[in-house]
């Protein structure tokens, strides 16, 4: 019961901040709103008893969004949002597409007929251990691929962003 309460509460917080991301005029506020939306999603992970993932989400997203805030201020024409300006296009189409996609996903959630599992979840320490074994044994190749992808992205990003002599 208390779990439902927490999931609903953090879910509402996540949705509220996600809504604020695209409705506020100030860039800093919208970056911070995204940050708190992600933090609320991390708190939902905690409420869903995935402790390691929840704490990881709370940590990673906060650092990502702090960096994002920095870049937004660097590259925005009007970061403070002191003068009202239009930064959207094809608004009607976007709303229509988003509503249709959202309704489809909600419908799938409501009428999916999920076969709920009955077994209990392992304790947090056991979960972290099992996750580590999964990474290092069965899914090692997947994890290695993720690592190599990170390396490739690092090199590509540096090559993109480096200042070339004119």
């Amino acid at each position: 019961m208390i779990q439902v309460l927490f999931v609903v509460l953090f879910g509402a917080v996540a949705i509220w901040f996600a809504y604020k991301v695209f409705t506020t005029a100030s860039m800093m506020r919208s970056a911070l709103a995204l940050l708190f939306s992600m933090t609320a999603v991390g708190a939902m992970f905690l409420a869903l008893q995935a402790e390691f993932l929840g704490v990881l989400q709370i940590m990673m997203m906060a650092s990502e969004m702090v960096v994002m805030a920095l870049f937004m201020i660097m590259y925005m024409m009007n970061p403070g949002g002191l003068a009202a300006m239009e930064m959207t296009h094809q608004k009607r189409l976007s709303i229509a597409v988003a509503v249709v996609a959202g309704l489809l996903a909600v419908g799938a959630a409501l009428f999916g007929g999920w076969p709920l599992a009955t077994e209990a979840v392992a304790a947090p320490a056991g979960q972290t251990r099992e996750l580590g074994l999964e990474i290092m044994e069965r899914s090692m190749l997947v994890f290695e691929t993720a690592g190599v992808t990170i390396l490739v992205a690092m090199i590509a990003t540096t090559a993109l962003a480096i200042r070339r002599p004119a």
Partner: protein
Amino acid sequence: MSVLVVSLIVAAVLFAIGLYGALSQTNLVMIMMGVELMLAGAMLNVVAFWRYLHPEAYSGQMFVLVLMTVMALEMAVGFGVATARFRSRGSVEMEEAVELRG
């Protein structure tokens, strides 16, 4: 309603808001924010499925780790593109990027 359905609905709403943002914003950084929200919705789905359908399969949790990697990569590459674009054109407004149309 079970917790699973509640989580899935929250994830669906996050995805819809992210989709709206990615389609409607004209600024590259704001578009990336929309993509991040969509990915967050996907991650929430995976965690909820892991918890209520297959709590014994830890590949579900690992998949969330891979998704987090994807999010970080999307940010890094996106900022690389933004930096390159800002250097050459002085703006990251995507309305002005019509020459990419090919």
